């Protein structure tokens, strides 16, 4: 097992290098001058020349890549051109939003997707099956941004004045601020240290932070703001999970041991629950990892529609502004976390299914 993990990690190294290279080349290949993109139309030629020199964009591209690789290996992502702040700080602010969104989306997707697939498989090829599958497929076929706009229209505008009203954008209501748990608990934390950054990263998960500090008002507000984007984001993974659950359950139901159990007179529901479901859910676990990628991609559109300051939106804005350090760092972080999630999924799959060996 350990050998497998080590081998997987070793195989990841060239892929990781490839990701770094591709990101760097893509970022630099984007046409357009970061100077005009960042300083605006009123920047003069001299101003732009100074700007370019200051950020080293006048040096040969391979020198820039070498410097970049050197810094990344030391864990330094550099400083944003547009905000002149360390990219790691910006990540700490933005990543938790997207994590909350993606995890929320995944939870909703599982809560609806698995039962839907289950019902569909148990009533195989009946009207229930067909309508459940059409429902799931509608989920997968709707443009996320379109659903988002329609949800905002219904819940923020039409439902105004009712209990179903939900805020159309933002993370918290105006004026509310989330107090980090370490301040609530009176820890003394030195600013700008690694410890402070880690604690900030944790505290920026507003839902988690308000849960452990018992700030119910903030929790309620944060959850209400998250509902519409989470629903919009969850439709695609929900549909995929439903389809996967259905087909893998159908397959398991056709296997010998289930047939044996049935023949022994076990009741249908018990058969499904006890024997089939556990085995059928294994493939569902594998696709969860893959779905994280889709969730992160969908987050760009969801964050755009709902005005959320997450990683996807930031990356899109950075591409527009040619803010290379942000483009590079954010892409690398997303790609690496995607890799890690899939590794974890593969490994845990081995724990869940004793038939799988890793050698």
């Amino acid at each position, binding site marked *: 097992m350990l050998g497998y993990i080590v081998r997987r990690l070793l195989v990841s190294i060239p892929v990781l290098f490839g990701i770094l290279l591709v990101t760097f080349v893509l970022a630099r290949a984007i046409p*357009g*001058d970061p100077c005009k993109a960042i300083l605006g139309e009123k920047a003069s030629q*001299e101003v732009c020349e100074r700007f370019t020199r200051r950020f080293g964009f006048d040096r040969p591209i391979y020198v820039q890549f070498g410097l970049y690789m050197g810094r990344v290996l030391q864990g330094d992502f550099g400083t944003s051109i547009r905000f002149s702040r360390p990219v790691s700080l910006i990540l700490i*602010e933005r990543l938790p939003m997207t994590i909350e969104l993606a995890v929320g989306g995944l939870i909703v997707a599982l809560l609806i997707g698995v039962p839907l697939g289950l019902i569909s498989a148990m009533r195989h090829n009946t009207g229930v099956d067909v309508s459940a599958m059409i429902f799931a497929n509608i989920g997968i076929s709707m443009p996320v941004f379109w659903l988002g706009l329609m949800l*905002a229209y219904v819940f923020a505008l039409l439902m105004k004045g009712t209990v179903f*009203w939900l805020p159309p954008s933002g993370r918290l*209501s105006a*004026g509310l601020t989330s107090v980090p748990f370490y301040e609530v608990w009176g820890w003394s934390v030195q600013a700008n240290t690694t410890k402070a950054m880690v604690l900030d990263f944790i505290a920026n998960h507003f839902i988690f932070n308000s849960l452990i500090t018992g700030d119910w008002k903030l929790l309620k507000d944060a959850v209400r703001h998250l509902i519409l984007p989470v629903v919009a984001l969850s439709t695609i993974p929900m549909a995929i999970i439903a389809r996967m659950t259905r087909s893998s359950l159908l397959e398991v139901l056709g296997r010998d041991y289930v047939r044996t159990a049935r023949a022994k007179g076990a009741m249908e529901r018990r058969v499904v629950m006890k024997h089939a479901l556990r085995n059928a859910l294994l493939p569902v676990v594998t696709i969860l990892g893959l779905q994280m990628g889709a969730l992160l991609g969908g987050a760009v559109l969801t964050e755009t529609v709902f005005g959320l300051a997450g990683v996807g939106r930031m990356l899109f804005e950075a591409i527009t502004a040619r803010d290379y350090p942000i483009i590079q760092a954010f892409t690398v972080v997303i790609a690496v976390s995607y890799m890690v999630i899939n590794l974890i999924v593969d490994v845990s799959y081995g724990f869940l299914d004793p038939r799988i060996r890793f050698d």
Partner: protein
Amino acid sequence: MNRSKLLGATAGILAAAALVGPAHAFTGKSVAAPDCGYGGKVKSIEATDEMTVTFTLCRPDPAFMAKAAFTPFGIQPEEHLAATGGGGDILEKPIGTAPWKLAKWARGDSVIMKRFDDYWGDKPNYETLVFRWSDSGAGRLIELRSGTVDQITNISPDDFDSVKNDSSLTFIPVANPNTLYLAMTNTFAPMDNLEVRKAIAVGIDRQRIVDNFFPDGSEVASHFTPCSITNACEGESWYEFDAAKARKMLADAGFPNGFKTKIFFRDVFRGYLPEPSVVAVEFQTQLRDNLGIEAEVVVMESGEFIDESTSGRLDGFYLLGWGADYPHVTNFLDYHFSAKNPQYGTPHPEIFEILEKASTIADVAKAKPLYANANNAIKALVPMVPIAHGASASAALAGVENAHFRPFGAPLFHRADPKKDTFVFMQNAEPISLYCADETDGESLSVCQQIVEPLLGYAIDSGAIEPRLATGCGANDDSTVWTCNIRAGVKFHDGSSLDANDVVASWAAGIDAANVNHKGNTGSFDYYSYLWDGLMNAK
């Protein structure tokens, strides 16, 4: 923590020294360029006494006051600039004299400001001012309608009527002067042919564009500069639309069947161009129907578009416009038609020679005939076709008293009253930093001006200049030396008092490239360089 204590202590010492009276000697700071050879307008800035600052210019600048009222020239304490070195912390924690002091900038979400109780002028009626943002017009309006915000910027043109008819909202027209123009780069064929450009000028039905694609209150451009600006509309009005005549002109110029070209634009909402892609398609339709010109519509990324268009590298038409920075005709004409600007191809001496002469004349009446000649030359040479002056609007909840939007700069929120503790304003985007000496985007500037004040400011309902930290500024005869008297008794948010050295230090950090505090965000100090023709002591 430590620093604010230190600043507090320093301020205390200063106050004590002031009490002692005549014994306290004031040492005025100054900043200067060795000579005027660097090309910029500012020769030196000097604190001539504790409450007086003198600006010495290399050339006369009648627009000095209009420019000095601009937000990037806000004043911060000399000590704060020194403590931050003009970078780092100052980007997130500005200290000003304005009615609002910064409480918290929740990145990605909002900027929260609290009332400054020692403000020298009218204090706000409420405790907290919050800025939020959304880049979608629909998103902002729905926030306003659901009551989660109190005022929004830039409502979409199609929502004008529904906002006007909604009794729970106040419709607020914004009178920022702007111009949309259809540009042609004269270094590419066939736009190098004056007769072709003239035919296009006659062949565009500008009235139809304004009627159908611009909100109420927009106007067809009779001249390049909107008429609300002094001397803008001297000289002849633009050509009348006549499709048949235009077609004949184009045929006479050698293109009886039109030609193929492109229309470049960027998909960015501006007051002068509320619906870029829709208007671009309308130009495409008109060029085809009226002149037989087949133009492909090409959208470009904003930064790339600005770079390419303003360097004169776009082969075809492009759609661009201009929103006024400060209320003066030079802000429109000199920027666009100067000898240095290649955006329409080769600049026309027939235009820029007149403008250079006019820009040094302070007397409005004396400058008038020159601007008439300049406008006539623009009409005769058609470097571009001025299309429209777009109307834009803000909206507020009906319960907000004195909700307004100034023609120049963001609203003065301390003058408005939401009748509750908190006022929430929603703009287009998040500020980039809060040190506006080195920012150019309107979103950063509108937050900054709630916190930091310049020497002068713009009126609530016009481009008129009002005193702020200066009680007034006066010029010598040829308007090359400007003397500003600093208001007495003004406190900064950190408790220290304003004096002439704070003014010199704030300006020096921006305009003097060799200053120790000349750091900023990107270090470009764009507006210093652009409005004063360059930074002094730059290498």
